[in-house]
């Protein structure tokens, strides 16, 4: 089964679950209030809409499910690993923000992306990391006065 169809099925299931969550949260809110429709009015119908549409998408994806060549699904898998890997690195850099500050965490993210994904030499990675960390500090912190998360080293 191709990535698209598996993805459609998975997204259909997740969105159906999400729709049910929206319905259950919305039913806990008043449907009507003294001003007319209550805070639960529109969310309830949105939840019903999400659930109905995602179930429809799910049914359609089951009907359309077909085969795809091994090469293309292998390519999709590698692509997703690279995409999600980059996102994971980004999230780690967010987690590091309060600990080591913006400059260092952006530097580390750059080093990871350049070495792991672009297969460049560590020297290139270090050069780019230093250039970006310094550039951002000069432009945003000093020139524009934008406050950024600061680490123990003061940047």
């Amino acid at each position, binding site marked *: 089964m191709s990535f*698209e169809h598996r993805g459609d099925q998975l997204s259909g299931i997740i969105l159906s679950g999400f729709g049910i969550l929206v319905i259950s949260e919305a039913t806990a809110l008043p449907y009507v209030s003294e001003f*007319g429709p209550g805070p639960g009015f*529109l*969310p309830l119908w949105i939840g019903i809409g999400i659930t109905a549409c995602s179930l429809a998408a799910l049914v359609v994806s089951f009907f359309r499910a077909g085969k795809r060549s091994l090469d293309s699904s292998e390519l999709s898998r590698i692509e997703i690993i690279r995409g999600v890997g980059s996102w994971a690195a980004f999230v780690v850099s967010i987690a590091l923000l309060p600990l080591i500050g*913006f400059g260092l965490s952006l530097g580390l993210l*750059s080093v990871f992306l350049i070495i792991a994904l672009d297969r460049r030499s560590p020297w290139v990675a270090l050069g780019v990391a230093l250039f970006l960390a310094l550039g951002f500090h000069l432009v945003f912190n000093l020139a524009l006065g934008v406050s950024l998360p600061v680490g123990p080293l003061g940047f």
Partner: protein
Amino acid sequence: MDAINNLVLGFSIALSAANLFWCFVGVFLGTIVGVLPGLGPPATIALLLPLTFKMDPTTAMIMMAGIYYGAKYGGSTTSILLNVPGESASVVTCLDGYQLARQGRAGPALGIAAIASFVAGSFGVLGLMFMAPPVARFALRFGPPEYFALMVVGLAMVVFLTGRSMVKGVLATLVGLWLAGVGTDVFTAQSRFTFGHMELLDGIDFIVVSIGLFAIGEVLINLESRTGAQIFKVPRGLRNLLPTLKDLKDSRFAFVNGSVVGFFIGVLPGAGSTIASFLSYGLEKAFSRNPEMFGAGVIEGVAAPEGANNSETGGALVPLLTLGIPGSATTAILLAALHLWGFRPGPLLIQENPNLFWGLVASMYVGNVMLLVLNLPLVPVFAQILKVPYFVLYPAIFGISIIGAYSISNSLFDVWMLGIFGLLGYFMRKLDYPAAPLVLGMVLGKRLELALRQSLMMSQGRLSILVGRPLSAAMLLFAVVLLFMPMLGRVRAWRTRAIEQELL
């Protein structure tokens, strides 16, 4: 006469030193963004929005609009030199532009793209100037039911024209509407969908969502693969970039076609510049004496879509400024920006804020001249931007995204939300869920709910008020027709073909 007086007022604002400078910054940044594949105008505007909070709002709007229409100019460069569109609206330009470059005519192709953009862009501004005030006067008749119906039409149009699957478009819209509802209810002050997080009481910040979906999502998609392409050299010197007299003669109808088609497509919510460029190219080919030459490198095949692409900007600003209804992701972000700066886009905007409206209109004339001057002699310089390695560009975009999210309220919570919406944006692209309806749903969600609840309060809970008034009934009927029309085979085939072109 009024329009002339107002335009004089507009020029007095647009020609101030600060506004000229920021207009230049906007069009310059826009050109760079247009040149760079993988970073579109919505992402750029969302990224820069937090930095405009300290600026004068009119100046900030002039700069943001500069980015918007500047990107349209820049988009042709990569289409012609690389066969890679800088943004989706430049896809059609690849067809003949790249062929011209292969024949050694990259210079005239870039030149005609700039000239067509200037001619049609100026037409679009004229259209905005003359069409916006009457539309605004007409919209003064609208009450809550009409506004509700109008927003439903806007959302239905976007669903109809974006993404291969209508169901996915509707789902994206509904998720956007739900996101708009997170936070404190305006009528009852009751918290909704905050899941115990105090930070969510004010709702989810629109800027965080748009940076996540567009900037982070786009970078993650680009990081998936390591592909390169061969770039054709741009001939140096203005003379080598100027089209010949024959080129200009061949393109004269393309200028008119692009200008008119682009503007009127722009006025329609959801249609956008991609459809405009696609349609004007089709018309140019249909009425050409040599339709078989299209795709093999004809100059009017570049002039028509590039013109339409630029004229569309003026058209798209008509519903945005006069009705408060955006037609695309970029105008949705501009709408959010207008709200953040304290404006109320709608029928009264022109009356209440003449400086903003007429200053913007005049700045667009100035900006178009700046872009022509920038794009003709400096195309070789802009083409050098393509040599900036992606391994420098992408970490930089991550950095700007973090700053954009953090600087909204100096809160790491927003940065975490950015991470979540970045992943959502990535998977939406992978799974072919269109992002524009989600963004539009989020921008319009609060106002849509307000209009619906006000309508129901007016009618003491009877839904018949929505179909009992002729204007709202007609608009709702139109929305229903739009959503069900793809069930007709021929319409579905046309829609799929148009969207396939857009997603190429």
